[in-house]
């Protein structure tokens, strides 16, 4: 037994948390650290846990580094950067025993906040900035970069790398660049002179992110819409989805705008936009615009969050029943009602699956990260036009608004979009008659005409009862014929939505089903369970309707868990309703407090059921 008191060195495996005040400029310092770690080639995640507020309330940022790629949210923090006096008590309590706390020592810390098992690192940030910067705003902002400088030294982040990142960020503003570089150096030098740098847990460069990018899901989704060829977007501002359209607007302005020189010399150039983005009066109008545009044959989408989906329900039913394509991006946040707009959840699953009154069923896709946001958004447009129906891309706030390390996106230039079954004027010329909802193909989809086509193909889109010819009806058989086909059509989409990801282990008695952003936490939990001698199979559903594999996965396992981020086990219910497996054959593991899932919550959920004991018996 060693009596060496030196702490264990841990390389590229730790978590830090930064406690800040909203609106003080901490976000840029925090993402600077995150980006530097990413550039060092180390798997990393950054999660912004922010309030629904512009200025003044507490906000936190968590960075997790893990050489094996386990970058789901950690619940134990090796280093706390306590920059918010309002939350000192809870922040100090959150530090792991044996961990560190960095605070602004310009003012003394209350004695009762002290912990014997935590090392306190005081950096006089406010004083430093007061002495070195003249402008009041700068004195506040530069404290952030100064603490980043101290962290660079404490964690062994490559200083030159950080300097070059600042140079890139402030390439066009010399004054700001100089201030930032100076503040960085102040914090860095103080830490090097005062503390034993680096700390026992620290970073060493790797090469695991060479082919990766650091991107948030909202940006990735906007890129997907751009590449899918979306030309019409209707939307209404809502947290956390707003950045989808902000990014789409920026991308379109760059890649879809043509500046045509004036016809004669001296004439001003004219702008031609190969897109239109309409900020609607509400989400009802947003989806209405999407339907109008999609009816006309343009690729069209909207982005929103739960409250917006609630409003869209009426027209989603219209789209379903009249068979009009639509792509709806739902960046889920914590409900019900206004709920917690800046917190994450996966609680719109059932809402979206069955949106609107009457018998409806929709196609859903569940991306787990920004790479899948890009991929699934492109796929959603194909699915919507192929099946002539609304298709949802269900992100959540964690995926949408946080930066993720994912493989760089690629594009296949031979890609041809699936525009679905459309009858052209040439087709009409060879047809005796055109009917909107018959004949249907093997996927139960009938061909449509677009407005503007020859009068032979003119028909009435109607949300009222209609028969397979598109005519108004109140006749039982005629009505049922259409809605029964719609049910079959929905079922046929099962093999066209992204297939589940399955990872099996030999002799696994338990199976864990999950979706979306739970991915990393669940896979980490499965590794941890394996270390405890419990083998678990993994299935991540990526689309609805479900393929038969989902049912088989549940039936195959003695114990099946469904891990999701909502109170009521919505995915579990949906699986039971749609596949017929008894709901009792699945155990829920739920996290719905508004923060991203951690592996520990999954492990606790499995272990808490007493399975280990039962399996050992």
């Amino acid at each position, binding site marked *: 037994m060693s009596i060496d008191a030196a702490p264990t060195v841990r390389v590229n495996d730790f978590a830090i948390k930064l406690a800040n005040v909203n609106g003080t400029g901490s976000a840029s310092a925090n993402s600077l650290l995150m980006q530097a770690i990413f550039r060092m080639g180390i798997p990393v995640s950054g999660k912004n846990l922010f309030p629904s507020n512009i200025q003044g309330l507490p906000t936190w940022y968590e960075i997790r580094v893990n050489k094996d790629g386990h970058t789901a949210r950690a619940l134990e923090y090796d280093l706390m950067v306590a920059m918010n006096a309002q939350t000192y008590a809870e922040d100090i309590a959150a530090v792991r025993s044996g961990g560190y706390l960095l605070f602004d020592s310009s003012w003394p810390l209350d004695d009762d906040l002290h912990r014997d098992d935590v090392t306190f690192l005081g950096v006089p940030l406010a004083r430093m900035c007061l002495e070195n910067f003249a402008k009041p705003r700068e004195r506040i902002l530069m404290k952030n970069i100064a603490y980043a400088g101290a962290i660079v030294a404490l964690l062994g982040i490559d200083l030159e790398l950080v300097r070059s990142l600042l140079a890139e960020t402030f390439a066009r503003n010399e004054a700001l660049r100089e201030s930032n570089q100076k503040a960085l150096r102040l914090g860095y030098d103080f830490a090097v002179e005062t503390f034993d740098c680096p700390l026992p847990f620290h970073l060493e460069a790797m090469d695991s992110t060479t082919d990766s990018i650091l*991107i948030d899901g909202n940006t990735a989704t906007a890129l997907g819409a751009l590449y899918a060829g979306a030309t019409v977007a209707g939307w209404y501002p809502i947290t956390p989805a707003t950045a989808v359209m902000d990014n789409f607007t920026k991308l379109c302005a760059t890649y879809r705008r043509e500046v045509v020189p004036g016809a004669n010399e001296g004439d001003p150039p004219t702008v031609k936009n190969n897109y239109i983005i309409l900020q609607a009066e509400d989400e009802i109008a947003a989806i209405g615009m999407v339907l109008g545009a999609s009816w006309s044959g343009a690729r*069209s989408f909207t982005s929103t969050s739960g409250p917006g989906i609630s409003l869209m329900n009426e027209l989603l039913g219209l789209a379903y029943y009249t068979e009009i394509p639509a792509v709806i991006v739902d960046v889920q946040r914590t409900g019900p009602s206004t709920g917690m707009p800046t917190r994450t959840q996966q609680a719109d699953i059932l809402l979206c699956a069955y949106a609107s009154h009457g018998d409806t069923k929709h196609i859903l896709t569940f991306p787990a990260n920004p790479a899948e946001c890009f991929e699934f958004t492109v796929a959603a447009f194909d699915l919507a036009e192929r099946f002539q129906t609304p298709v949802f891309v269900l992100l959540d706030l964690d995926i949408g608004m946080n930066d993720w390390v994912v493989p*760089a996106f690629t594009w296949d230039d031979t890609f041809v979009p699936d525009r679905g079954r459309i009858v052209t004027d040439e087709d009409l010329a060879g047809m005796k008659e055109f009917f909107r909802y018959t004949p249907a193909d093997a996927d139960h989809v009938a061909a449509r005409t677009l407005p503007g086509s020859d*009068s032979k193909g*003119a028909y009435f889109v109607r949300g009222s009862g209609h028969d397979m010819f598109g005519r108004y009806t109140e006749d039982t058989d005629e009505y049922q014929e259409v809605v029964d086909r719609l049910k079959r059509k929905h079922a046929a989409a099962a093999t066209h939505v992204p297939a589940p990801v399955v990872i099996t282990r030999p002799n696994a008695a338990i199976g864990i089903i999950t979706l979306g952003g739970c991915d990393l936490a669940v896979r980490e939990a499965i590794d941890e369970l394996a270390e405890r001698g419990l083998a678990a199979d993994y299935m991540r559903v990526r689309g609805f309707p479900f393929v038969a594999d989902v049912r088989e996965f549940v039936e195959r396992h003695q114990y099946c868990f469904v891990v999701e981020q909502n109170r009521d086990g919505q995915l579990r219910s949906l699986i039971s309703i749609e596949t017929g497996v008894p709901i009792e054959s699945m155990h829920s593991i739920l996290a719905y407090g508004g923060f991203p899932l951690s592996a520990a919550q999954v492990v606790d959920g499995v272990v808490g059921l007493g399975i280990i004991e039962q399996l050992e018996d």
Partner: protein
Amino acid sequence: MPSITKPLIPLAPLAKNELGLTIRDYEGAMSTLCAGCGHDSITAAITHAFWELSTPPHTIAKLSGIGCSSKTPTYFVRGAHGFNSAHGRMPTIATGAAAANRELTYIGVSGDGDSLSIGIGHLAHAIRRNVNMVYVIENNGVYGLTKGQLSASADIGTRPKKGDANVVAPIDPIMLGLAMGATFLARSFSGDKEQLIPILKAAVAHNGLALIDVISPCVTFNDHEGSTKSYRFMREHEVKEVVTDFVPEREEIAVAIGGRETRSVTMHDGSVLTFRSVPEGYDPTNRISVEEYIRDHQRLGEVVTGLLYLDEGAPSMHEINHTPLEGLNKLPFSALCPGSAVLEDLMSDFR
């Protein structure tokens, strides 16, 4: 909505328009509205307007919401593309459709319940956006399909067939339009085809949203004594001072029939609109004068009809958004997808 196919009975040779089509080619299914319904007269006016304009039927998109008025697109231009949407939401669908394909003529038919209650927000914003469409409100002051409840356009003192007289302020779509920055505002009466047809034709030629409020008596629920939307009330209280002629681009203006004052406005497509008769002090291009005039007459219990306001110079939705002339739905995928090289380049922004 239920509809009955209209038997095509060959009658005496009918006049043909420039496309060689007769008025029959612009009709739709048989109306299932009540006999004498004002809406059917509006349907007839729309039918005539499109026939006279020689608009190819397949280039017309007719949209509606829910209600008696919203049934009527079935009854005109059978060769047009139709969309009967949800209650109050027609403007949103029309906005999206017009945004995607600017080559068609869009006509939305709505009612006072559809446009002034459940869908008033959408109407207001469609006006603000100046969506390229004709927007007809068939205004009868009541909800017909649900049997006679008063709507938001019912005047104070109006008595429903059952129950108490209305005591809350009515919403006037023309006043709403003036406040929202509308660029074409007209009011007419379903019983006056002579006035309505030229207004409809001018509305089709207008670049932007043309709002036409047509008082259209409901013979079943709102044509009784005490109603301000009855045939009798309209015949007694209509003030038809703003009289217009619409001359399509192709025709020469033969005679501008004299009146107190004439004033011509060239429409976006080159056709000419002549205000044959406007009262003194009234300027149909001046928002304030229009508002004052209508209010003054409202105080006297009079309903002013005609093409009341026109701003042909304002940019429409397409000009505001710089959309391409050929329609967004016509753009090939190759013009929309930036391709692999751009993506690879873009990726460097995220490293």
